[in-house]
C-alpha cells in the first residue's frame, strides 16, 4: 500500500469517527432539548444552538478534510510516485505543474532536482561511454588479433591456470569443455616441456630477457598424444620485474612433421638414388669417348647400358616429380578456411570495386588454402568473368567432392573457352605475396580452372581446392562461439580462480538482443521466419555498430496479414538465403553472448524448431524483457514493447522491422539493468531466481 493511500484512509477514518460522534451528540442534545422544553417553555434551547454550531463545525471540518485530501494528499502521493519513477529510471522530461496546482512550488522543485539529476546522469553516461568506447576498441582489437591468428594462443599465470585462450587453441588441443578459464594447462598439454621452457625463461640473464627476441621455442604434445605442437613462450612481467604469467603460442605440426619427413625422403631419393644410374651412364659415356676404336659388339653393349640407365633415370625422375606434387606446399601459410568467410571477403571487395554482385548459395563448407591469395584469385576470376560475359551477378557455391572442395561460379550467359581462361593465368594479382600471378596461386593449391555450360543459357566456372584438415561439419555440441571472449586477466591474481558464470555480475555479460519477423504466429503449424535483427550489448552499452540484419527466404508464401505488419514481401525474400544459411550466421553472431528478446518465448520457439536441421544450438540462457518488466512493475498495466518504450521515454527509429524492434528492446533492456541493480539484483543467478524467467519461458513456449 502506498503511503498516500494510507494517509487518505486514516484521514477518512478520523473524519468518519468525528462525524459519528457529533451525530450522536446532536441526537442526544435534541432528545435532551425536547425533555427540557417540556419544563421550560418559551426560551429557545441553548443546547440546540450548541448542537447546530457543532454540526456546522463538523461539516466544515469534513469539507476541509476533503479538500486537503483531494488537493494535497492525493496529488502529493501521485507526485511522490512520479518522483520515485524519475529517480529510478532517470527519465528526462519535467512533470507538468498544471497537474498539481496546489503543489506547484514542490513540483517546480522536483523538476529542478530531476533536471540536475538527468544532467549529472547524462554527463556520467557520456564519460562512461567515452571510457567504454576506448576499452571496447582495445578489446575488439585484441579479439580481432586473437581471432585472426592462425596460432593457438594461451595465457597462463605462474600456477599454470589458463587466463586466456583463443578458438584455434581450442581446436588444436582437441578439447570440448575441459579448457576453461582457471583450469590447469596440464589438463591439456604435456607438463615437462612447458616447465622446462618456463625454467629457461625465468633463469636466463636479464640482458637476454630484454632483448627483442624475448620468446623461446617449445615443443610439446597434447595430453592425448594426438597432436604434436610447436610454439613459442614468453613471460608476462609485472612493473617490478617479477613474472606473473606466460604466453604460449602453439601450432599443430603433426601434419607438417609428417610432410617434412616425406620431403626429406624425397631429397634423399633425389640425391642418393639418382647417383647409381647417373654413375653408370657417365662410365658408359666416358668409356665410349675414350675408346673410340672399340669393336661394334662392345660398343653396342655400352650403348645398351646408356639406353637402359637413361630409362631408369627418366622413370625415377618421373616418380620423384609425382611424389613432389603430392606434397602440399608446407612452407606456404595453408589453413582451413570457411567458405562463408572467404566469399564474404570477395563479395565486399567486389562491391567496393564496383564489380559484379556475388550471390552466395548453398551450404558453406570448409576448404584448405592460403585465404588471402584465394580471395584475390576468386575476386579476379569474378571480374574477368563479368568482363568477358557481361554478367552482372554471379552465384557462388562451395561443392563437396571426394577429395577436394570445389568453388563454383555460375552466371547467365555462355561458358568460357580454355584459351580465354589460360589468358587470365599470367596476370599478376596486386597485393598477393611476392606478386604472384593467378596461375601461380592456382598451381600452389594444385588447382586448374575450367568452364562449361549448364543447360541452355547458363554457365559455370569451377575451381577445385584442397579439402580441409578438419572434419567438414562440426557437430553442434562442439560449435564454437565466433568471438573469442575467452579471457579473464583478473585471474593473474590467483585468488579469484574458478568463478562461476551464474554469480558473475549481469552487466559483465555480453548480450545479443534480437527480434524476428515471421509469416505468422504459429511456428508449430508451418509459420516461418522472414527476417532476423539483432544488436549486441557489451558492458551495458548498445553497440549499434554490431548489428545483425538478414532477410530470410521462408520457402513459403508470406500471408498478406503478416506482410501488412512487417512490410516484407515475397519479392523481397525471393533472393534471400534460406533459414539453413541465416541461422548458423546468427549463431555465429551470437557467440557466447546471452540472448535477450521481448516475449522471447515466441522467437525462441522459431529458433528451436529449426536449429537441429541447421546444425546449430540455441541452448544458452535466454532473458525476456517482457518478463523482467512484469517483475519490475507488477502494478503497471501493459508490458508490450510499445507501452514499455513509451513509459520509459525511449525513442527508437524504424520500429516494426526486426532490427528496429531489436534496438528498441535493447534500449529497454539497458534501462531494466539499472532498475534491477537498484533493487539489488546484480548477478545473473539472482535475476533468474527472482523473476523465474526460465520456468515462465518454458510454459509460454508451449503456447506457440
Amino acid at each position: 500500500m502506498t503511503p498516500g493511500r494510507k494517509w487518505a484512509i486514516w484521514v477518512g477514518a478520523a473524519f468518519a469517527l468525528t462525524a459519528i460522534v457529533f451525530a450522536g451528540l446532536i441526537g442526544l442534545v435534541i432528545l435532551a432539548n425536547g425533555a427540557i422544553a417540556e419544563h421550560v417553555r418559551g426560551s429557545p434551547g441553548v443546547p440546540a444552538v450548541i448542537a447546530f454550531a457543532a454540526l456546522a463545525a463538523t461539516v466544515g471540518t469534513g469539507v476541509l478534510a476533503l479538500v486537503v485530501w483531494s488537493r494535497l494528499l492525493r496529488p502529493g502521493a501521485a507526485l511522490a510516485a512520479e518522483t520515485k519513477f524519475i529517480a529510478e529510471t532517470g527519465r528526462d522530461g519535467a512533470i507538468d505543474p498544471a497537474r498539481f496546482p496546489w503543489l506547484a512550488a514542490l513540483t517546480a522543485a522536483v523538476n529542478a532536482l530531476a533536471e540536475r539529476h538527468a544532467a549529472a546522469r547524462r554527463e556520467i553516461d557520456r564519460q562512461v561511454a567515452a571510457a567504454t568506447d576506448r576499452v571496447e576498441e582495445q578489446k575488439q582489437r585484441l579479439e580481432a588479433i586473437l581471432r585472426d591468428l592462425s596460432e593457438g594462443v594461451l595465457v597462463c599465470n605462474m600456477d599454470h591456470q589458463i587466463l586466456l585462450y583463443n578458438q584455434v587453441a581450442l581446436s588444436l588441443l582437441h578439447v570440448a569443455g575441459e579448457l576453461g578459464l582457471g583450469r590447469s594447462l596440464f589438463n591439456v598439454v604435456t607438463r615437462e616441456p612447458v616447465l622446462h621452457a618456463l625454467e629457461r625463461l625465468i633463469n636466463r640473464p636479464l640482458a637476454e630477457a630484454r632483448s627483442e627476441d624475448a620468446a623461446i621455442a617449445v615443443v610439446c604434445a597434447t595430453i592425448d598424444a594426438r597432436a604434436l605442437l610447436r610454439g613459442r613462450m614468453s613471460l608476462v612481467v609485472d612493473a617490478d620485474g617479477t613474472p606473473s604469467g606466460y604466453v604460449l603460442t602453439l601450432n599443430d605440426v603433426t601434419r607438417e612433421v609428417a610432410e617434412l619427413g616425406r620431403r626429406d625422403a624425397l631429397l634423399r631419393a633425389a640425391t642418393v638414388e639418382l647417383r647409381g644410374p647417373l654413375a653408370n651412364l657417365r662410365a658408359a659415356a666416358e668409356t665410349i669417348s675414350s675408346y673410340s676404336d672399340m669393336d661394334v659388339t662392345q660398343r653396342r653393349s655400352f650403348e645398351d647400358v646408356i639406353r637402359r640407365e637413361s630409362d631408369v633415370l627418366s622413370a625415377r625422375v618421373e616418380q620423384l616429380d609425382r611424389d613432389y606434387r603430392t606434397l602440399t606446399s608446407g612452407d606456404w601459410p595453408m589453413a582451413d578456411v570457411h567458405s562463408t568467410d572467404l566469399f564474404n571477403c570477395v563479395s565486399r571487395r567486389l562491391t567496393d570495386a564496383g564489380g559484379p554482385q556475388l550471390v552466395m548459395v548453398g551450404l558453406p563448407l570448409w576448404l584448405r588454402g592460403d585465404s588471402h591469395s584465394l580471395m584475390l584469385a576468386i575476386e579476379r576470376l569474378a571480374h574477368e568473368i563479368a568482363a568477358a560475359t557481361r554478367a552482372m551477378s554471379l552465384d557462388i557455391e562451395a561443392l563437396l567432392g571426394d577429395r577436394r572442395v570445389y568453388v563454383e561460379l555460375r552466371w547467365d550467359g555462355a561458358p568460357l573457352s580454355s584459351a580465354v581462361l589460360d589468358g587470365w593465368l599470367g596476370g599478376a594479382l596486386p597485393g598477393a605475396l611476392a606478386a604472384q600471378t593467378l596461375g601461380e596461386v592456382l598451381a600452389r593449391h594444385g588447382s586448374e580452372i575450367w568452364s562449361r555450360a549448364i543447360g541452355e543459357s547458363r554457365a559455370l566456372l569451377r575451381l577445385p581446392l584442397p579439402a580441409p584438415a578438419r572434419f567438414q561439419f562440426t557437430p553442434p555440441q562442439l560449435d564454437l562461439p565466433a568471438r573469442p571472449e575467452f579471457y579473464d586477466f583478473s585471474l593473474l591474481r590467483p585468488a579469484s580462480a574458478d568463478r562461476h558464470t551464474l554469480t558473475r555480475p549481469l552487466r559483465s555479460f555480453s548480450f545479443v538482443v534480437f527480434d524476428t519477423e515471421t509469416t505468422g504466429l504459429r511456428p508449430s503449424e508451418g509459420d516461418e521466419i522472414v527476417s532476423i535483427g539483432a544488436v549486441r550489448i557489451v558492458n551495458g552499452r548498445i553497440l549499434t555498430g554490431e548489428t545483425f540484419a538478414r532477410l530470410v527466404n521462408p520457402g513459403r508464401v508470406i500471408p498478406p496479414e503478416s506482410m501488412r505488419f512487417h512490410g516484407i514481401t515475397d519479392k523481397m525474400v525471393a533472393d534471400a538465403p534460406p533459414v539453413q544459411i541465416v541461422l548458423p550466421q546468427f549463431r555465429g553472431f551470437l557467440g557466447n553472448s546471452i540472448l535477450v528478446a521481448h516475449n522471447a518465448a515466441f522467437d525462441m520457439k522459431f529458433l528451436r524448431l529449426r536449429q537441429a536441421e541447421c546444425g546449430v544450438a540455441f541452448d544458452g540462457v535466454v532473458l525476456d524483457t517482457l518478463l523482467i518488466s512484469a517483475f519490475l512493475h507488477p502494478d503497471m498495466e501493459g508490458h508490450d514493447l510499445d507501452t514499455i518504450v513509451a513509459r520509459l521515454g525511449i525513442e527508437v527509429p524504424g520500429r516494426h522491422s526486426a532490427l528496429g524492434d531489436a534496438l528498441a528492446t535493447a534500449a529497454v533492456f539497458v534501462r531494466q539493468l539499472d532498475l534491477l541493480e537498484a533493487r539489488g539484483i546484480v548477478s545473473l543467478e539472482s535475476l533468474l531466481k527472482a523473476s523465474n524467467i526460465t520456468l515462465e519461458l518454458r510454459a509460454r513456449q508451449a503456447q506457440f
Partner: protein
Amino acid sequence: MKRSVLVVDDEPNIVLSLEFLMKQAGFEVRVARDGAQALKALAERAPDLILLDLMTPGIDGYEVCQKVRGNPATRAVKIIMLTAKSREVEREKGLALGADEYITKPFSTRELVDRVKRLLAETAS
C-alpha cells in the same frame, strides 16, 4: 518411424560428410564401404533410400543398383547415384538401370539433402 538411408561409398572423407548430413536431416544412417557390404546391409534390412557411389571396389554401383531392382523385397527402395562420371551416357545408363536420381560429384550439399528429402516425401505420400 525414422526413415533410413544406406550410404555406399569407399571414400572415407565423403562418407563422413554424407553420414553427418543425413543424420542432421533426421534419418537413420548405415554405411557400406563397397558393393559386397552394401548387398549384405540390404539383405539385413531394406533402407528407404540408398546413396550409391558408382565406383565402389569389387561389385560396382551399377550392379548393386540392378540387384536392388531385381529383388522384390528391395524394389521400392529409392536410389540416388553419386558419381564423378558426368558424361550424358553414364547418366542415361544409371537411370536406365533403375536409379531415381543421378548426382555428379562434386555436389551441392544442400541440393543433395533436398533431393533425398523430396524422394522420401514421395514414398511417404
